[in-house]
């Protein structure tokens, strides 16, 4: 499915099996965006959280 980057409006292809919380990256500006699916299945993108100092393993 397709969506638009919140920052630069570039087209972003979101895999059909993407789950809520998954991160996609804008191919144009590189912004990380979090996928959210609302109750009627519509995909919303919002800017992902910035990497925290305690992230990762």
């Amino acid at each position, binding site marked *: 499915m397709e969506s638009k980057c919140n920052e630069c409006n570039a087209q972003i292809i979101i895999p059909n099996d993407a789950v809520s919380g998954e991160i996609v990256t804008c191919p144009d500006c590189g912004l990380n965006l979090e996928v959210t699916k609302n109750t009627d299945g519509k995909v919303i993108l919002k800017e992902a959280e910035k990497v925290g100092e305690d*992230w*990762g*393993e």
Partner: protein
Amino acid sequence: MQSKDISTLKLDAKNVAFELPNNNSNQNFGDIVLQRCISHFRGLHASAYIESAGIQVINSAKVAEICGNKFYTSLALCKSGVPTPKTVMTFTPESALTTIESMGYPVVLKPLVGSWGRLVVALRDQEEANAFIELQSQIEGALNRIFYIQEMVKRPPRDIRCIVVGEKVVSSVYRIAKADDWKTNVARGGSTEPCPLSNELEDMVLKASKAVGGGVLGVDAMEGSDGLVIHEINSTVEFRGAQNSSTTDIAEEIVDYTINQILE
């Protein structure tokens, strides 16, 4: 999990609110929780709360606490007799610099909490030591007032990452540093190759896993000049790099282990 026909509920740490007293009236944690939060502190505190509700968490809050703090990990390894690099902890820049001089160069300065090789720096001479100790002492946060200083182990430009699930090493890979970096983290561009799982490596890794309480762990080892040493253990282990060089389905191993914990 979907392929195994298991009912699952995903909790997003950004949306939860854990209430105390916990009267269990409005929260459903199921039969078991597989905690995979990318934030160590969020995951740790969530695990503690869920455990207080009587639900088992993989990994336990205690294991997460030990593995998330490099000094606690070093303590656990030493207590269990697992070979680990010489490490010194100090609380002031002055004592850190004195310690480094007595250890001799090079040494490695690591943040107590953190991953992906962030803020890990090799100190090769006094000038670097002065600069980076001062830098760390200027970074906000109480944990940065603790200096975790480790000998720099002479090793090939790689280390070993073993994924342990319960009492089984399900994956063993070399993590190879990029040409211009000494750090091997996959997050920093390191690559992976299969690593033969010798009896010595397997025994040491399983002993290290047990030392911190066991579960689903990423155990990191180095081939030092005096033999294998374990330098880090990761609780919410990421395994993209390991999976690229493993024939085992690591995710499936983790899911099967979690399901079996319910049944036991």
